[in-house]
């Protein structure tokens, strides 16, 4: 694109980036204003910032309790994905066993089954059948092992050289030992990528935990904040301020983790994982 000067490209990219970031900036500013100021100047306040909205949302939604629920939900999914997903990814990439082909076809099919088809049967089974309403297990179960993560693990184990495994097997190492001390240390970057990608799923998920949890003390923050938005906010003094304060609390952990580990969002890793 030699005809398209670099400077113009940068100007457009920066304009786009600022446009993309503006809602985040506005979310933070709005959460710090005592009353909503929707004038253009209100987006760039010079004084009068307050933390009152955070106290307000905390008095209506148990922020700490909700964050703990989000944490347990997300942590459970991460644990299952890392333990069972790595085992499955390793087996699919490196081991020849009966049913491997079938399992891999299933993995591919899962990618194309949309969640909405499973919504009703999963609700019937998990909430009505197994009685797991308002429980962490009920929240975690449909997300327990992230299939995209299994894909990424498989892809990375496939890329390791064959000789490595042949040598370890010659030395008499068992498969679990090879996985633990040879393969895993080599795929640590993939592990982090998969963990980050898996994290944003349950942390941000709304629909499923919304269906499963009716008790306020079991709700993850996304659900309690959504309930506040749709039911309670009209009665608050500064509803938008409180909503935006809650939104900042919900967004902060995912955004902070993402920025801290953004290098792990290397396009090729995730691309290869998704493309299989």
């Amino acid at each position, binding site marked *: 694109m030699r005809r398209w000067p670099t400077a113009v*490209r940068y100007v457009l990219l920066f304009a786009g980036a600022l446009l993309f970031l503006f809602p985040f900036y506005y979310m933070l500013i709005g959460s710090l204003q005592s009353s909503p100021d929707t004038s253009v100047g209100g987006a760039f306040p010079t004084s009068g910032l307050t933390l009152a909205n955070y106290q307000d949302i905390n008095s209506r939604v148990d922020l700490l309790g909700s964050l703990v629920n989000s944490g347990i939900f997300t942590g459970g999914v991460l644990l299952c994905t890392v333990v069972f997903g790595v085992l499955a990814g390793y087996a699919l990439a490196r081991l020849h066993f009966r049913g491997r082909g079938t399992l891999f076809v299933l993995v591919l099919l899962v990618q194309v089954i949309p969640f909405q088809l499973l919504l*009703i049967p999963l609700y019937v089974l998990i909430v009505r059948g197994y009685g797991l309403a308002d429980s962490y297990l009920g929240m975690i179960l449909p997300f327990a092992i992230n299939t995209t993560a299994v894909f990424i693990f498989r892809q990375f184990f496939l890329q390791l050289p064959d000789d490595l495994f042949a040598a370890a097997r010659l030395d008499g190492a068992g498969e679990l030992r090879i996985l633990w001390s040879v393969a895993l240390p080599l795929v640590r970057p993939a592990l982090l990528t998969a963990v980050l990608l898996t994290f944003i799923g349950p942390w941000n998920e709304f629909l499923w935990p919304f269906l499963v949890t009716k008790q306020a003390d079991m709700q993850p923050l996304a659900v309690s904040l959504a309930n506040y938005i749709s039911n309670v906010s009209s009665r608050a003094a500064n509803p938008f301020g409180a909503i935006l304060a809650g939104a900042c609390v919900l967004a902060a952990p995912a955004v902070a983790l993402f920025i801290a580990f953004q290098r792990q969002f290397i396009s090729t890793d995730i691309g290869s994982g998704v493309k299989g």
Partner: protein
Amino acid sequence: MAAATRTRVAATLGRHPVGMILAAPYAVYLAIVFAYPFGFSIWISFHDYFFAAPGAIVDHPFVGLDNYKAVLTDPAVRESFGNIGVFLIINVPLTTALALVLAVALNRVVHARTFLRVAFYVPYVTASVAVVGVWLFLFNSDGLVNTVLGPLAPDPSWLVNEGLAMPVIALFVTWKQLGFFILLYLAALQNVPKELYESASVDGANGWNKFWSVTVPAVRPATALVVILALITGANLFTEPYLLTGGGGPNGASTSPVLLMYQRGLQQGEPDFAAAIGVLLVIGVLIVAWINRRFIEGRD
């Protein structure tokens, strides 16, 4: 003897039978959470299914296509499918075009690379519920958007306007998901052979020509993937109409099929009706995906 046994085991269980044990938890998980509910969903859609009191043994008689007939003749369902059509017509082309153009531009960036990528990815990693809060604030009738537009502000305002509610949702989802699709295109761009650009330069192609005759055809498989994933995201639409337009308002103008599945299936207790919506929705997605595949990937 031992060798013979090993060969026989290898023939029936494979060379590494331990693989079955390692993969077993995941296989069981797929069976419980995907395969069984998948079949169950189709079963429910052909039966008279309702929620009974816990422990009660009730009959769920086979009703053939009754649920499907009820779904297809329901005006609310038809409207919701129409709404998703509007959503997809705006969201899918916008997403594909913007993601590709931004990926090509970002791919050549040397300065401020991290800042620019983070800026475009960050909506993707943030919860919908959180950013919906800001969009409500921005697109409120006396929100910043209308303040800036002044006399040009639509009346009724964006989210309570029947003609504008769905386009605003489509715009929201484009903004929210774009980072992920940029990521996919960036991955695809790494695999475009440099020689293609060099030979195009030799032939006297300018930047625009190269984009159309080299980049676009080379990332065609990625485009097919982007379109299908955008389609699935769109078909799954729930949070945005539930929160942004207060439950699919105004007058159902932004109701999505999944929102309807929740309202009819779980709130009003007609899971069989909702299951039929789900099956039809998936069939719809598959048909559109198949057409798109033929269209984008050529005649194979």
